[in-house]
């Protein structure tokens, strides 16, 4: 049995051709077979998963299914609080901590009937990594375990790509959903800021943190986001607005969409590898052929977005970690502490200048994209590098393609756009205006359906 997509599994379960218990056991068996190599899980909750799967099966047999996620095995990034189950943030500092409450999104996904298989690896506190000096090893890329998954939602990216789970949760403060989705060849969406509650998820940077889903396909991300989204009056950033039907645009083409391309981002500001450029060109050709209008746009440079995003991020992160930095410095992994400490060295005035620059950049971005529905660029500059080649300052030396949409709060997602010469996946990033996830899913799904990249899974050696 090959791990099905969420949509496929939902159809089979509804038709009583696939049992949630059988599907859960398949995933647990697969974890046992390959996760010794991938290290995508920090903890596997087999017993609870099988009990929840039996309950889902009972609902199905009683004609009381909760919908397309009922009986679907997933995993949660280990910064998502889980009641009664250890939540570590992949850090020695939280070893043994057991939350008394579920994160709001964990509750929502459980209410939709998902089966939690366990807690997934992350870069330490969603920031450092890949680190080799933590209580658990870093996750490995299923397409080639010698290579990096990106992060920080590293375990979710690896586990979805390897078919250990059908979907999972991630968080994204500078690209932590879209980066691993790109390197692991899956789909991952950072929704609009405020669409998903962050309550119960360990914070990194309050004004930049986003919760979102990762899955094998765009359609599966839409299904997961439908369950995760919604107003939470206790999360100050939560958006009090109706949740649309995210599947409304699926199965349609891109006709009528106006797609902006900030070519200078991936051609000049940070030139991408040929395979990534070809993937972008393929996506634009597909959409153009379906009747979308492709328009070049000029935005602030990637470096402008990176500067404001990084300064805000590390200032807010350092404020959260400062007490431990002073008392438990050596308990952090080297990568996290050496990067995050920068937040303790910048001045309050510089933090405020970054916040003022953020408003200016958001306004410039909005002005330059008037009349545009979507933006398209790279998600990552190339294929995943070897995990042992990642340098401590790589993420500072070059600007990322993902941070612009943390800074602006726009929804953005990574979608597999082909494979590079090393056999590893490459991706395209698509972004939409705030709360326009339906158009984003429409275009992403149209591209995915027009290509054949979802037919190829990593060939893992057990």
């Amino acid at each position, binding site marked *: 049995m090959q791990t099905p997509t969420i949509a496929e599994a939902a159809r089979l379960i509804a038709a009583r051709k696939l049992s949630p218990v059988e599907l859960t056991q398949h995933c647990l068996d697969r974890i046992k077979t390959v996760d010794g190599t991938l290290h995508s899980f920090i903890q596997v909750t087999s017993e609870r998963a099988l009990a929840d799967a039996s309950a889902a099966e009972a609902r199905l047999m009683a004609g009381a299914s909760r919908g397309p996620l009922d009986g679907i095995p997933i995993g949660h990034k280990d910064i998502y609080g889980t009641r009664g189950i250890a939540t570590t943030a992949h850090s020695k500092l939280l070893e043994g901590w057991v939350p008394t409450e579920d994160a709001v999104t964990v509750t929502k996904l459980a209410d939709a009937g998902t089966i939690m298989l366990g807690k997934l690896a992350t870069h330490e506190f969603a920031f450092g990594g890949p680190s080799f000096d933590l209580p658990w090893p870093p996750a490995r890329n299923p397409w080639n375990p010698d290579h990096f998954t990106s992060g920080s939602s590293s375990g979710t990216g690896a586990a979805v790509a390897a078919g250990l789970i059908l979907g999972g949760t991630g968080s994204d403060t500078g690209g932590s959903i879209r980066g691993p989705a790109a390197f692991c060849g899956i789909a991952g969406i950072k929704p609009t800021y405020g669409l998903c509650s962050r309550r119960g998820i360990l914070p990194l940077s309050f004004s930049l943190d986003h919760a979102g889903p990762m899955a094998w396909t765009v359609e599966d991300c839409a299904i997961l986001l439908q369950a995760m989204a919604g107003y939470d009056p206790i999360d100050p950033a939560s958006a009090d607005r109706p949740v649309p039907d995210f599947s409304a645009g699926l199965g349609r083409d891109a006709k009528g969409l106006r797609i902006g391309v900030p070519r200078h981002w991936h051609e000049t500001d940070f030139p991408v590898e040929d395979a990534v450029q070809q993937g972008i060109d393929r996506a634009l050709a597909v959409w153009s052929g379906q009747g979308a209008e492709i328009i070049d746009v000029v935005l602030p440079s990637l470096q402008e977005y990176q*500067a404001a995003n990084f300064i805000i991020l590390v200032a807010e992160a350092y404020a959260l970690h400062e007490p431990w930095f002073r008392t438990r410095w050596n308990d952090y992994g080297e990568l996290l502490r050496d990067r995050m400490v*920068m937040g303790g060295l910048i001045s309050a005035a510089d933090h405020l200048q970054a916040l003022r620059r953020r408003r200016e950049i958001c306004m410039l971005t909005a002005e330059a994209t008037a009349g545009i529905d979507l933006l398209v660029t790279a998600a990552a500059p190339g294929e995943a590098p070897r995990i042992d080649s990642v340098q401590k*300052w790589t993420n500072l030396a070059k600007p990322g393609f993902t941070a612009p949409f943390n800074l602006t709060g726009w929804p953005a997602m990574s979608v597999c756009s082909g494979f590079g010469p090393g056999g590893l996946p490459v991706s395209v990033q698509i972004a939409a205006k705030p709360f326009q996830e339906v158009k984003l899913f429409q275009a992403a799904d149209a591209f995915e359906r027009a290509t054949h990249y979802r037919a190829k899974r990593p060939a893992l050696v057990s």
Partner: protein
Amino acid sequence: MANTSREDFEALVRRAGLSLTPEQISTIYEGWGYVEPMLARVRTHGRGREAEPAHIFRPEMFGTEAD
């Protein structure tokens, strides 16, 4: 290579209340060389005094009606 002198950088570390070894300071000093250009970018845009940050205090978040 950072523009800030090593002595001035060590003063920043002390101000943060951190007690680090010379080797740890050397490592972070290297990274500071990448942060400095970012600080320059957010400082130098000739914005007016009236330009507010992206996040301002909203009193209605904490109740607006008389009890």
